[in-house]
Protein backbone atom coordinates (compact mmCIF):
# COMPACT_ATOMS: atom_id res chain seq x y z
CA UNK A 1 0.00 0.00 0.00
CA UNK A 2 1.34 3.37 -0.92
CA UNK A 3 1.24 6.17 1.62
CA UNK A 4 1.88 9.48 -0.09
CA UNK A 5 1.90 11.83 2.82
CA UNK A 6 2.98 10.03 5.95
CA UNK A 7 2.82 11.98 9.18
CA UNK A 8 3.43 9.09 11.58
CA UNK A 9 6.02 6.48 10.88
CA UNK A 10 6.59 3.32 12.91
CA UNK A 11 9.73 1.33 12.24
CA UNK A 12 10.64 -2.10 13.66
CA UNK A 13 8.73 -1.38 16.83
CA UNK A 14 8.91 -4.05 19.54
CA UNK A 15 7.37 -3.76 22.99
CA UNK A 16 8.14 -6.31 25.66
CA UNK A 17 6.76 -6.63 29.18
CA UNK A 18 9.39 -9.03 30.39
CA UNK A 19 12.48 -10.74 29.09
CA UNK A 20 11.72 -12.43 25.80
CA UNK A 21 7.95 -11.94 25.93
CA UNK A 22 6.85 -9.50 23.28
CA UNK A 23 3.47 -7.84 23.20
CA UNK A 24 4.26 -6.11 19.90
CA UNK A 25 6.75 -7.54 17.40
CA UNK A 26 8.42 -5.75 14.50
CA UNK A 27 5.67 -3.41 13.48
CA UNK A 28 6.38 -1.29 10.42
CA UNK A 29 3.79 1.17 9.21
CA UNK A 30 3.28 4.66 7.88
CA UNK A 31 0.12 6.56 8.65
CA UNK A 32 -1.31 8.92 6.08
CA UNK A 33 -1.93 12.54 7.05
CA UNK A 34 -5.57 13.50 7.58
CA UNK A 35 -6.77 9.93 7.47
CA UNK A 36 -8.44 7.62 9.93
CA UNK A 37 -6.49 4.42 10.50
CA UNK A 38 -8.16 1.64 12.44
CA UNK A 39 -6.23 -0.97 14.41
CA UNK A 40 -8.21 -4.16 14.85
CA UNK A 41 -7.59 -7.61 16.18
CA UNK A 42 -8.74 -10.12 18.77
CA UNK A 43 -8.21 -9.46 22.48
CA UNK A 44 -4.61 -9.51 23.55
CA UNK A 45 -3.22 -8.97 20.06
CA UNK A 46 -1.26 -5.88 21.07
CA UNK A 47 -3.34 -3.13 19.53
CA UNK A 48 -3.63 -0.98 22.67
CA UNK A 49 0.02 -1.64 23.44
CA UNK A 50 0.95 -0.39 19.98
CA UNK A 51 -1.18 2.72 20.38
CA UNK A 52 0.30 3.58 23.75
CA UNK A 53 3.82 3.15 22.46
CA UNK A 54 3.16 6.10 20.17
CA UNK A 55 2.61 8.64 22.93
CA UNK A 56 5.02 6.94 25.29
CA UNK A 57 2.47 5.99 27.90
CA UNK A 58 4.62 2.95 28.63
CA UNK A 59 7.25 5.25 30.16
CA UNK A 60 5.32 4.97 33.42
CA UNK A 61 6.27 1.34 33.75
CA UNK A 62 10.03 0.83 33.89
CA UNK A 63 9.75 -2.91 33.27
CA UNK A 64 8.39 -2.30 29.75
CA UNK A 65 11.08 -2.13 27.04
CA UNK A 66 10.63 -0.46 23.69
CA UNK A 67 12.81 -1.07 20.63
CA UNK A 68 12.54 0.58 17.27
CA UNK A 69 11.57 4.05 16.09
CA UNK A 70 8.42 6.12 16.13
CA UNK A 71 8.51 9.43 14.32
CA UNK A 72 6.02 12.21 13.77
CA UNK A 73 7.02 14.45 10.85
CA UNK A 74 10.44 12.81 11.02
CA UNK A 75 11.04 13.74 14.66
CA UNK A 76 11.98 10.67 16.68
CA UNK A 77 9.53 10.57 19.59
CA UNK A 78 11.81 8.57 21.82
CA UNK A 79 14.54 11.15 21.64
CA UNK A 80 12.54 14.14 22.79
CA UNK A 81 10.93 14.96 26.10
CA UNK A 82 7.91 12.66 26.69
CA UNK A 83 5.76 15.57 27.78
CA UNK A 84 6.39 17.22 24.42
CA UNK A 85 5.50 13.96 22.69
CA UNK A 86 2.16 13.87 24.44
CA UNK A 87 1.32 17.31 23.18
CA UNK A 88 2.00 16.13 19.63
CA UNK A 89 -0.09 13.00 20.06
CA UNK A 90 -3.25 13.41 22.11
CA UNK A 91 -5.08 10.43 23.53
CA UNK A 92 -8.74 9.68 24.21
CA UNK A 93 -9.59 6.72 26.37
CA UNK A 94 -12.26 4.08 26.49
CA UNK A 95 -14.07 5.39 29.56
CA UNK A 96 -14.92 9.10 29.28
CA UNK A 97 -12.86 10.77 32.00
CA UNK A 98 -13.40 14.51 32.34
CA UNK A 99 -11.57 15.77 35.40
CA UNK A 100 -14.20 15.75 38.16
CA UNK A 101 -12.70 18.63 40.07
CA UNK A 102 -12.79 20.97 37.08
CA UNK A 103 -15.64 22.75 35.33
CA UNK A 104 -16.44 22.10 31.67
CA UNK A 105 -14.60 25.29 30.75
CA UNK A 106 -11.50 24.27 32.67
CA UNK A 107 -11.64 20.75 31.33
CA UNK A 108 -11.34 21.99 27.76
CA UNK A 109 -8.24 24.03 28.53
CA UNK A 110 -6.93 21.48 31.04
CA UNK A 111 -4.01 20.81 28.73
CA UNK A 112 -2.85 24.38 29.13
CA UNK A 113 -3.58 24.50 32.87
CA UNK A 114 -1.69 21.31 33.62
CA UNK A 115 1.28 22.38 31.55
CA UNK A 116 1.44 25.68 33.39
CA UNK A 117 0.81 27.68 30.23
CA UNK A 118 -0.74 31.02 31.13
CA UNK A 119 -3.30 32.43 28.74
CA UNK A 120 -5.27 35.61 28.73
CA UNK A 121 -8.97 35.28 29.40
CA UNK A 122 -9.82 36.22 25.83
CA UNK A 123 -7.53 33.51 24.46
CA UNK A 124 -9.01 30.96 26.83
CA UNK A 125 -12.57 31.87 25.86
CA UNK A 126 -11.68 31.57 22.21
CA UNK A 127 -10.08 28.17 22.61
CA UNK A 128 -12.97 26.81 24.67
CA UNK A 129 -15.58 28.01 22.20
CA UNK A 130 -13.67 26.79 19.17
CA UNK A 131 -12.98 23.33 20.56
CA UNK A 132 -16.48 22.81 21.88
CA UNK A 133 -17.89 23.88 18.51
CA UNK A 134 -15.53 21.45 16.77
CA UNK A 135 -16.97 18.59 18.78
CA UNK A 136 -20.57 19.78 18.39
CA UNK A 137 -20.92 20.34 22.11
CA UNK A 138 -21.01 24.15 22.20
CA UNK A 139 -24.75 24.59 21.84
CA UNK A 140 -25.46 22.01 24.48
CA UNK A 141 -23.19 23.41 27.18
CA UNK A 142 -22.59 27.07 26.42
CA UNK A 143 -24.86 28.13 29.25
CA UNK A 144 -23.32 25.86 31.84
CA UNK A 145 -19.62 26.15 31.14
CA UNK A 146 -18.85 26.55 34.80
CA UNK A 147 -20.69 23.47 35.93
CA UNK A 148 -18.71 20.35 36.59
CA UNK A 149 -18.13 18.09 33.62
CA UNK A 150 -19.44 14.96 35.26
CA UNK A 151 -23.04 16.04 35.01
CA UNK A 152 -23.02 15.41 31.27
CA UNK A 153 -24.18 12.20 29.62
CA UNK A 154 -21.64 9.57 28.57
CA UNK A 155 -21.56 10.68 24.95
CA UNK A 156 -21.22 14.34 25.91
CA UNK A 157 -18.45 13.51 28.37
CA UNK A 158 -16.52 11.69 25.68
CA UNK A 159 -16.91 14.61 23.30
CA UNK A 160 -15.63 16.85 26.08
CA UNK A 161 -12.58 14.61 26.40
CA UNK A 162 -12.04 14.86 22.66
CA UNK A 163 -12.34 18.66 22.88
CA UNK A 164 -9.78 18.58 25.67
CA UNK A 165 -7.37 16.64 23.47
CA UNK A 166 -7.75 18.80 20.40
CA UNK A 167 -7.35 22.02 22.39
CA UNK A 168 -3.62 21.42 22.39
CA UNK A 169 -3.70 21.10 18.58
CA UNK A 170 -1.84 17.81 18.36
CA UNK A 171 -0.69 16.37 15.06
CA UNK A 172 -2.21 13.01 15.84
CA UNK A 173 -5.23 11.87 17.81
CA UNK A 174 -4.88 8.44 19.36
CA UNK A 175 -8.15 6.82 20.34
CA UNK A 176 -8.39 3.67 22.42
CA UNK A 177 -11.84 2.17 21.80
CA UNK A 178 -13.49 5.56 22.37
CA UNK A 179 -17.05 4.38 21.87
CA UNK A 180 -17.02 1.00 23.64
CA UNK A 181 -18.67 2.43 26.72
CA UNK A 182 -21.35 4.39 24.84
CA UNK A 183 -24.81 3.64 23.48
CA UNK A 184 -25.34 3.37 19.71
CA UNK A 185 -26.67 6.90 19.23
CA UNK A 186 -23.76 8.49 21.11
CA UNK A 187 -21.43 6.19 19.18
CA UNK A 188 -22.90 7.38 15.90
CA UNK A 189 -22.41 11.02 16.86
CA UNK A 190 -18.79 10.43 17.74
CA UNK A 191 -18.16 8.55 14.50
CA UNK A 192 -19.60 11.48 12.54
CA UNK A 193 -17.40 13.77 14.61
CA UNK A 194 -14.28 11.78 13.76
CA UNK A 195 -15.07 11.97 10.07
CA UNK A 196 -15.19 15.77 10.44
CA UNK A 197 -12.08 15.95 12.62
CA UNK A 198 -9.96 14.02 10.16
CA UNK A 199 -9.91 17.08 7.96
CA UNK A 200 -7.70 18.79 10.53
CA UNK A 201 -6.08 15.91 12.40
CA UNK A 202 -4.70 12.48 11.72
CA UNK A 203 -6.57 9.85 13.69
CA UNK A 204 -5.51 6.38 14.78
CA UNK A 205 -8.29 4.44 16.43
CA UNK A 206 -8.15 1.08 18.16
CA UNK A 207 -11.45 -0.72 17.86
CA UNK A 208 -12.72 -4.22 18.43
CA UNK A 209 -15.83 -3.38 16.44
CA UNK A 210 -15.30 -4.40 12.83
CA UNK A 211 -18.32 -2.50 11.55
CA UNK A 212 -16.97 0.67 13.11
CA UNK A 213 -13.62 0.17 11.42
CA UNK A 214 -15.45 -0.45 8.17
CA UNK A 215 -17.62 2.63 8.56
CA UNK A 216 -15.08 5.27 9.35
CA UNK A 217 -11.52 4.21 8.58
CA UNK A 218 -9.58 4.84 5.38
CA UNK A 219 -6.92 2.26 6.15
CA UNK A 220 -6.92 -0.63 8.58
CA UNK A 221 -4.32 -2.61 10.44
CA UNK A 222 -4.98 -6.15 11.54
CA UNK A 223 -2.91 -7.36 14.47
CA UNK A 224 -2.64 -10.86 15.78
CA UNK A 225 -0.47 -12.09 18.66
CA UNK A 226 1.71 -9.00 18.50
CA UNK A 227 2.34 -9.07 14.75
CA UNK A 228 1.04 -6.58 12.24
CA UNK A 229 -0.49 -9.18 9.94
CA UNK A 230 -1.99 -6.89 7.33
CA UNK A 231 -2.18 -3.15 6.73
CA UNK A 232 -4.15 -2.00 3.76
CA UNK A 233 -6.92 0.17 2.40
CA UNK A 234 -10.05 -0.65 4.39
CA UNK A 235 -12.33 -1.34 1.43
CA UNK A 236 -9.82 -3.73 -0.06
CA UNK A 237 -9.02 -5.48 3.21
CA UNK A 238 -12.67 -6.01 4.05
CA UNK A 239 -13.67 -7.40 0.64
CA UNK A 240 -10.49 -9.22 -0.35
CA UNK A 241 -7.87 -9.55 2.38
CA UNK A 242 -4.43 -10.81 1.39
CA UNK A 243 -3.59 -12.79 4.48
CA UNK A 244 -5.45 -15.91 5.47
CA UNK A 245 -5.44 -14.90 9.14
CA UNK A 246 -7.18 -11.62 8.28
CA UNK A 247 -9.77 -13.58 6.33
CA UNK A 248 -10.34 -15.84 9.32
CA UNK A 249 -10.72 -12.91 11.66
CA UNK A 250 -13.14 -11.06 9.39
CA UNK A 251 -15.33 -14.12 8.94
CA UNK A 252 -15.48 -14.70 12.65
CA UNK A 253 -13.40 -17.81 12.86
CA UNK A 254 -11.59 -16.43 15.85
CA UNK A 255 -12.84 -13.64 18.05
Amino acid at each position, binding site marked *: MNIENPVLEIKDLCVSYSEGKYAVKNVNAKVEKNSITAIMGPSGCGKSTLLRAINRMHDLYPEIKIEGRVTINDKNLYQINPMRVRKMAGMVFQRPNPFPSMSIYDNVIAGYILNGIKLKKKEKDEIVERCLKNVSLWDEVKDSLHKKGIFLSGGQQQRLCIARSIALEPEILLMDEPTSALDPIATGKIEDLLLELKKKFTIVIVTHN*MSQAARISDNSMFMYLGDLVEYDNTKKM*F*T*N*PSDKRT*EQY*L*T*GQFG
Partner: protein
Amino acid sequence: MNAKHTAINNIINDFEQVSQLCLNQVSQLNTLVTDANADKESIYAKMRDNENIIDHFEINISEEIINTIVLYQPLAGELRKLISCMRIIGFIERISDLSINIIEFINRIDHLEHLLFFAGPMEEMLNMTYSMTQGAISSFACENEESARLTIERDDEVDDLQRMISAQILEKKIIDNISSNSQINSLICINNISSNIERIADNATNIAEASIYMLKGKDIRHS
Protein backbone atom coordinates in the same frame (compact mmCIF):
# COMPACT_ATOMS: atom_id res chain seq x y z
CA MET B 1 -21.40 -22.76 14.31
CA ASN B 2 -23.15 -19.46 14.89
CA ALA B 3 -26.27 -17.93 13.38
CA LYS B 4 -24.34 -16.36 10.52
CA HIS B 5 -22.73 -19.63 9.46
CA THR B 6 -26.07 -21.44 9.71
CA ALA B 7 -27.74 -18.82 7.53
CA ILE B 8 -24.99 -19.04 4.91
CA ASN B 9 -25.14 -22.85 4.92
CA ASN B 10 -28.88 -22.79 4.39
CA ILE B 11 -28.47 -20.49 1.42
CA ILE B 12 -25.84 -22.78 -0.10
CA ASN B 13 -28.08 -25.83 0.42
CA ASP B 14 -30.95 -24.10 -1.37
CA PHE B 15 -28.53 -23.08 -4.08
CA GLU B 16 -27.45 -26.66 -4.60
CA GLN B 17 -31.07 -27.75 -5.00
CA VAL B 18 -31.97 -25.07 -7.51
CA SER B 19 -28.79 -25.59 -9.50
CA GLN B 20 -29.60 -29.29 -9.78
CA LEU B 21 -33.05 -28.45 -11.13
CA CYS B 22 -31.44 -26.10 -13.64
CA LEU B 23 -29.13 -28.82 -14.89
CA ASN B 24 -32.13 -31.14 -15.23
CA GLN B 25 -33.83 -28.58 -17.47
CA VAL B 26 -30.83 -28.51 -19.80
CA SER B 27 -30.45 -32.28 -19.91
CA GLN B 28 -34.14 -32.76 -20.73
CA LEU B 29 -33.63 -30.52 -23.73
CA ASN B 30 -31.17 -33.03 -25.07
CA THR B 31 -33.81 -35.77 -25.01
CA LEU B 32 -36.37 -33.57 -26.72
CA VAL B 33 -34.11 -32.49 -29.52
CA THR B 34 -32.54 -35.82 -30.33
CA ASP B 35 -35.08 -38.50 -29.48
CA ALA B 36 -38.01 -38.58 -31.91
CA ASN B 37 -40.05 -40.98 -29.78
CA ALA B 38 -39.79 -39.10 -26.58
CA ASP B 39 -42.96 -38.44 -24.62
CA LYS B 40 -42.91 -34.76 -25.34
CA GLU B 41 -46.02 -33.82 -23.41
CA SER B 42 -44.90 -35.23 -20.12
CA ILE B 43 -41.43 -33.76 -20.53
CA TYR B 44 -42.94 -30.34 -21.27
CA ALA B 45 -45.14 -30.61 -18.17
CA LYS B 46 -42.24 -31.55 -15.97
CA MET B 47 -40.07 -28.74 -17.30
CA ARG B 48 -42.80 -26.16 -16.75
CA ASP B 49 -43.22 -27.36 -13.17
CA ASN B 50 -39.48 -27.10 -12.61
CA GLU B 51 -39.53 -23.60 -14.06
CA ASN B 52 -42.06 -22.55 -11.41
CA ILE B 53 -40.01 -24.09 -8.65
CA ILE B 54 -36.87 -22.37 -9.91
CA ASP B 55 -38.68 -19.02 -9.97
CA HIS B 56 -39.72 -19.46 -6.38
CA PHE B 57 -36.22 -20.44 -5.37
CA GLU B 58 -34.85 -17.33 -7.04
CA ILE B 59 -37.07 -15.07 -4.95
CA ASN B 60 -36.48 -16.93 -1.69
CA ILE B 61 -32.74 -17.24 -2.02
CA SER B 62 -32.39 -13.55 -2.99
CA GLU B 63 -34.36 -12.55 0.08
CA GLU B 64 -32.30 -14.81 2.32
CA ILE B 65 -29.08 -13.35 0.99
CA ILE B 66 -30.27 -9.79 1.64
CA ASN B 67 -31.35 -10.75 5.17
CA THR B 68 -28.05 -12.41 5.91
CA ILE B 69 -26.10 -9.35 4.78
CA VAL B 70 -28.28 -7.00 6.83
CA LEU B 71 -28.24 -9.08 9.97
CA TYR B 72 -24.78 -10.53 10.09
CA GLN B 73 -22.63 -8.12 8.04
CA PRO B 74 -20.45 -10.81 6.48
CA LEU B 75 -17.08 -9.70 5.24
CA ALA B 76 -14.31 -10.75 2.86
CA GLY B 77 -14.79 -14.27 1.40
CA GLU B 78 -18.22 -14.74 2.94
CA LEU B 79 -19.49 -11.48 1.45
CA ARG B 80 -18.14 -12.34 -1.99
CA LYS B 81 -19.72 -15.76 -1.79
CA LEU B 82 -23.15 -14.29 -1.11
CA ILE B 83 -22.87 -11.61 -3.79
CA SER B 84 -21.78 -14.20 -6.37
CA CYS B 85 -24.58 -16.49 -5.30
CA MET B 86 -27.05 -13.67 -5.85
CA ARG B 87 -25.79 -13.09 -9.37
CA ILE B 88 -25.67 -16.80 -10.19
CA ILE B 89 -29.27 -17.38 -9.11
CA GLY B 90 -30.31 -14.78 -11.67
CA PHE B 91 -28.40 -16.58 -14.40
CA ILE B 92 -29.87 -19.93 -13.36
CA GLU B 93 -33.35 -18.52 -13.62
CA ARG B 94 -32.58 -17.19 -17.06
CA ILE B 95 -31.19 -20.58 -18.17
CA SER B 96 -34.44 -22.18 -17.12
CA ASP B 97 -36.42 -19.47 -18.93
CA LEU B 98 -34.43 -20.07 -22.09
CA SER B 99 -35.10 -23.80 -21.80
CA ILE B 100 -38.83 -23.11 -21.67
CA ASN B 101 -38.47 -20.85 -24.71
CA ILE B 102 -36.80 -23.73 -26.50
CA ILE B 103 -39.65 -26.15 -25.83
CA GLU B 104 -42.11 -23.49 -27.05
CA PHE B 105 -40.17 -23.35 -30.28
CA ILE B 106 -40.05 -27.14 -30.53
CA ASN B 107 -43.84 -27.16 -30.16
CA ARG B 108 -44.22 -24.84 -33.12
CA ILE B 109 -42.18 -27.01 -35.45
CA ASP B 110 -44.57 -28.82 -37.83
CA HIS B 111 -41.85 -30.41 -39.91
CA LEU B 112 -39.96 -32.46 -37.35
CA GLU B 113 -37.85 -34.09 -40.04
CA HIS B 114 -35.93 -30.82 -40.33
CA LEU B 115 -35.24 -30.89 -36.62
CA LEU B 116 -33.91 -34.40 -36.82
CA PHE B 117 -31.71 -33.36 -39.72
CA PHE B 118 -29.84 -31.01 -37.43
CA ALA B 119 -29.89 -33.38 -34.44
CA GLY B 120 -26.15 -34.03 -34.68
CA PRO B 121 -24.80 -30.52 -34.26
CA MET B 122 -27.66 -29.66 -31.90
CA GLU B 123 -26.70 -32.54 -29.65
CA GLU B 124 -23.09 -31.48 -29.75
CA MET B 125 -24.07 -27.95 -28.82
CA LEU B 126 -26.31 -29.16 -26.06
CA ASN B 127 -23.66 -31.46 -24.61
CA MET B 128 -21.14 -28.67 -24.62
CA THR B 129 -23.59 -26.27 -23.06
CA TYR B 130 -24.56 -28.81 -20.44
CA SER B 131 -20.99 -29.47 -19.41
CA MET B 132 -20.25 -25.72 -19.37
CA THR B 133 -23.20 -25.12 -17.08
CA GLN B 134 -22.26 -28.01 -14.88
CA GLY B 135 -18.63 -26.90 -14.75
CA ALA B 136 -19.56 -23.35 -13.85
CA ILE B 137 -21.96 -24.40 -11.12
CA SER B 138 -19.51 -26.87 -9.63
CA SER B 139 -16.73 -24.27 -9.69
CA PHE B 140 -18.91 -22.19 -7.35
CA ALA B 141 -20.12 -25.05 -5.19
CA CYS B 142 -16.72 -26.75 -4.91
CA GLU B 143 -14.66 -23.53 -5.03
CA ASN B 144 -12.69 -24.73 -8.00
CA GLU B 145 -11.11 -22.12 -10.27
CA GLU B 146 -10.13 -24.54 -13.03
CA SER B 147 -13.72 -25.51 -13.92
CA ALA B 148 -14.64 -21.85 -14.23
CA ARG B 149 -11.75 -21.13 -16.58
CA LEU B 150 -12.63 -24.11 -18.76
CA THR B 151 -16.22 -22.96 -19.07
CA ILE B 152 -15.18 -19.47 -20.09
CA GLU B 153 -12.82 -20.83 -22.73
CA ARG B 154 -15.46 -23.01 -24.34
CA ASP B 155 -17.89 -20.16 -24.91
CA ASP B 156 -16.25 -19.37 -28.25
CA GLU B 157 -16.71 -22.96 -29.41
CA VAL B 158 -20.43 -22.79 -28.74
CA ASP B 159 -20.63 -19.49 -30.60
CA ASP B 160 -18.91 -21.11 -33.57
CA LEU B 161 -21.33 -24.05 -33.54
CA GLN B 162 -24.30 -21.75 -33.48
CA ARG B 163 -23.00 -19.79 -36.45
CA MET B 164 -22.37 -23.02 -38.30
CA ILE B 165 -25.91 -24.26 -37.69
CA SER B 166 -27.35 -20.94 -38.92
CA ALA B 167 -25.26 -21.18 -42.07
CA GLN B 168 -26.34 -24.77 -42.61
CA ILE B 169 -30.01 -23.84 -42.21
CA LEU B 170 -29.65 -21.18 -44.90
CA GLU B 171 -27.85 -23.67 -47.11
CA LYS B 172 -30.60 -26.26 -46.65
CA LYS B 173 -33.27 -23.78 -47.60
CA ILE B 174 -31.45 -22.88 -50.79
CA ILE B 175 -30.39 -26.44 -51.70
CA ASP B 176 -33.74 -28.06 -50.96
CA ASN B 177 -35.58 -25.07 -52.36
CA ILE B 178 -37.82 -24.81 -49.40
CA SER B 179 -40.60 -22.34 -50.01
CA SER B 180 -43.69 -23.26 -48.04
CA ASN B 181 -44.50 -21.07 -45.09
CA SER B 182 -44.77 -23.85 -42.59
CA GLN B 183 -41.43 -25.26 -43.63
CA ILE B 184 -39.75 -21.91 -43.49
CA ASN B 185 -41.39 -21.39 -40.12
CA SER B 186 -39.90 -24.64 -38.90
CA LEU B 187 -36.46 -23.64 -40.12
CA ILE B 188 -36.76 -20.31 -38.33
CA CYS B 189 -37.76 -22.09 -35.14
CA ILE B 190 -34.76 -24.37 -35.43
CA ASN B 191 -32.53 -21.31 -35.81
CA ASN B 192 -34.10 -19.76 -32.75
CA ILE B 193 -33.58 -22.95 -30.80
CA SER B 194 -29.87 -22.96 -31.55
CA SER B 195 -29.46 -19.29 -30.68
CA ASN B 196 -31.28 -19.91 -27.38
CA ILE B 197 -28.88 -22.73 -26.64
CA GLU B 198 -26.03 -20.36 -27.35
CA ARG B 199 -27.51 -17.93 -24.86
CA ILE B 200 -27.68 -20.67 -22.22
CA ALA B 201 -23.97 -21.14 -22.77
CA ASP B 202 -23.48 -17.40 -22.33
CA ASN B 203 -25.25 -17.54 -19.01
CA ALA B 204 -23.06 -20.44 -17.99
CA THR B 205 -20.08 -18.24 -18.76
CA ASN B 206 -21.58 -15.50 -16.60
CA ILE B 207 -21.91 -18.03 -13.78
CA ALA B 208 -18.24 -18.90 -14.20
CA GLU B 209 -17.25 -15.23 -14.03
CA ALA B 210 -19.25 -14.76 -10.84
CA SER B 211 -17.55 -17.81 -9.41
CA ILE B 212 -14.13 -16.32 -10.18
CA TYR B 213 -15.17 -13.13 -8.34
CA MET B 214 -15.94 -15.23 -5.31
CA LEU B 215 -12.65 -17.11 -5.50
CA LYS B 216 -10.26 -14.34 -6.44
CA GLY B 217 -12.00 -11.07 -5.61
CA LYS B 218 -11.48 -9.95 -9.21
CA ASP B 219 -14.35 -8.88 -11.40
CA ILE B 220 -13.48 -10.23 -14.86
CA ARG B 221 -16.70 -9.34 -16.62
CA HIS B 222 -16.42 -7.51 -19.95
CA SER B 223 -12.71 -8.11 -20.08
